[in-house]
């Protein structure tokens, strides 16, 4: 008994020792000033620099086997082919915060010239991206940005303003410029969603939309069933409702599913942000006339050109620089290294079959 007790003592001492090791003296609190490990963009841009053949352009999506990125990266492959580069797509099978780090390290170790990444966690990947930069890789973020110290440029799929105006234009046109409308959003605290809702309200406050009234905003939490129920609730509470805007793909698809089998079909307009594959059947059966989203393929395509231009030294990522992006034409680098893809693409009966995502 005595022996075992000493050993418990030993174990406890080990544990206590463990704690003390980490508890060094002093105190580092949030208020303390601190240096950040950011890398500075340097050098002069040479717009006429040649893009060398055989650039290794690697795409690191949030996760592999995600239809959105699989489709998007066909654009990356297209860009790499046109640039005579070597295209590669790697990534984790789970979209975890830190799961991309080992892939970044691997790409850096392989000497990839351009790393195009959609960050699962803007912070977790930062230091490994900076290390890759120091080792000579150009970092382009697409779809989901990191901090601006962690990459050279960010391909912004669409500005919040463009997303808001496009949706307002669609709903206004489809309901004939007057009547009650409502929003079906994701979660009440989703930053993106709230920014878009606010901008849409601002847009709707303009004189040309004076006859349109927003009567309700409901939240489907990006849950299919909840969104379905919320849509049902909306239509029952507001019998005069003319239209619903759902700026979330989950919400839009669920709302369309409800609408297509309800008596309101044809009377109530539904639009928002959605993917062509999810919405195809509802466009074909007339539930939804048109909806919008950026074209992820063009986003990845633009990222490839931006990365190659950076790698070749045509641009440095500074504001105001311009570069050619193949079939998409000329683009300009905005503030904080952001390159905006352009206004969202509107999908309807005529073009929906051209997209697969």
């Amino acid at each position, binding site marked *: *008994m005595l*022996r*075992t007790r000493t*050993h*418990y003592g*030993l*174990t406890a001492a*080990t*544990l206590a020792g*463990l*704690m003390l*090791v*980490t*508890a*060094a*003296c*002093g*105190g*580092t*609190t*949030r*208020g*303390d000033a*601190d*240096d*950040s*490990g950011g890398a500075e963009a340097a050098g002069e841009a040479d717009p006429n620099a040649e893009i060398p053949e055989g650039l290794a352009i690697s795409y690191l999506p949030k996760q*592999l*086997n995600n239809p959105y990125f699989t489709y998007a990266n066909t654009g990356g492959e297209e860009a790499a082919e046109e640039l005579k580069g070597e295209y*590669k797509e*790697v*990534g*984790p*099978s*789970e979209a*975890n*915060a*830190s799961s991309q*780090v*080992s*892939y970044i*390290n*691997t790409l850096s*170790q*392989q*000497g990839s010239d351009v790393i195009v990444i959609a960050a699962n*966690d*803007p*912070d*977790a990947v*930062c*230091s490994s991206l900076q290390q890759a930069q120091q080792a000579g890789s150009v970092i382009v973020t697409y779809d989901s940005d990191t901090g601006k110290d962690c990459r050279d440029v960010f391909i912004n799929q669409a500005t919040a303003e463009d997303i808001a105006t496009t949706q307002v234009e669609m709903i206004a046109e489809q309901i004939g410029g007057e009547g009650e409308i409502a929003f079906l959003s994701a979660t009440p*605290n989703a930053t993106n969603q709230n920014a878009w809702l606010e901008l849409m309200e601002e847009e709707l406050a303009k004189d040309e939309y004076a006859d349109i009234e927003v009567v309700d905003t409901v939240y489907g939490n990006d849950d299919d069933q909840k969104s379905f129920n919320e849509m049902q609730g909306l239509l029952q509470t507001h019998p005069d409702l003319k239209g619903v805007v759902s700026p979330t793909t989950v919400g839009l698809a669920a709302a369309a599913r409800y609408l297509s089998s309800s008596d309101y079909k044809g009377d109530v307009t539904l639009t928002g942000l959605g993917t062509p594959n999810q919405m195809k059947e509802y466009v074909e059966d007339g539930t939804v006339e048109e909806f919008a989203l950026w074209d992820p393929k063009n986003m990845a395509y633009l990222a490839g050109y931006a990365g190659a231009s950076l790698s070749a030294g045509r641009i440095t990522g500074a504001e105001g620089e311009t570069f050619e992006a193949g079939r998409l034409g000329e683009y300009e680098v905005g503030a904080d290294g952001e390159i905006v893809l352009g206004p969202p693409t509107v999908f309807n009966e005529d073009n929906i079959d051209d997209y697969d995502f």
Partner: protein
Amino acid sequence: MAPDVTTPPAGGTALPPRPAGQRSVLQRVLATRESSVIGALLVSILAASLLVDGFASGRNSGFLILDIAAIALIALPMTLVIVTGEIDLSVASTLGLTSAVMGQLWVIGLPLETIAVLCLVLGALLGAVNGLLVTVAGLPSLAVTIGTMAMYRGLAYVILGDQAVADFPFSWTGGATARLSGTPIPWIALLIIVLAVVFGLLLHATPFGRSLYAIGSNDEAARFSGIPVLRTKLVLFIASGTVASLAGVFWTLQYGSARADNAFGLELSVVAAVLLGGVSIFGGKGALLGVLGGVLLLGTIRNALQLADVSSDMLSIVTGTLLVVSVVLPNAIERVRARRRTAEPPS
């Protein structure tokens, strides 16, 4: 694998194998599971160095070590837990909860030094909850820790939601991944080695350690022979929780991001590494050296295959197969041996 290779039958397979007592010390060492794991590790390192571009570099080994650091830390107490025939599946959630708490405490303005200590205390408490449910309530640890796995992860989301706290000072985040001066080896490797020695000595060189094997082999018999089974298990769960929290503090600083979903699913990698290292899931068998070999082997294979552009799906298949083989093969060998033994003519 090793056992068959190292005891070549003198005159063909028809002869019965020599009784264990006649084998030399070297043969017995070579016949252990951990030596086959270490052997497999050396072979994969050699093969990867020769075949995979960019594998054999200091920079890459630094990446590799950082990749497996959390798994290696958590695997140490996990080995002791599994040797006693129990399991702790809540470790990754403990890590996530620690990370969330760490972020929240940082936001309210506590100094990081205090936070680190509080996090370890939290880990000990979370481990104690597991331990008490297993010992006092007498529930199977598999059920208990599946429950707390969900519970701790849920708590983490309650505390931090899907937000991230990421404004930790660079002196700490950069410090977490800092290399030992003049080498490409991250300092965390030192901490892993120190803790491995501590846990290794505890398991292999103390009566406490021997009592773990006794408990794992036969819980009842151990109790009757005077081993405080319940208290021992409680201590192990507390150790497991504490080290998981230590890994949580490190993880948060390593990635510079406190999030509720940090290390989601990591418990499976830890258990896989421990089993691959030759620890029996039924308890009573295993060595810490083998587990370290298992962690490194999984890390090496993953790193090398990634560098060789093998897709992540293929990677899961390879590591999964390896695990199944490592569990099935020794069993199969054991069965063949048993059959031979029974087939032995009476002398």
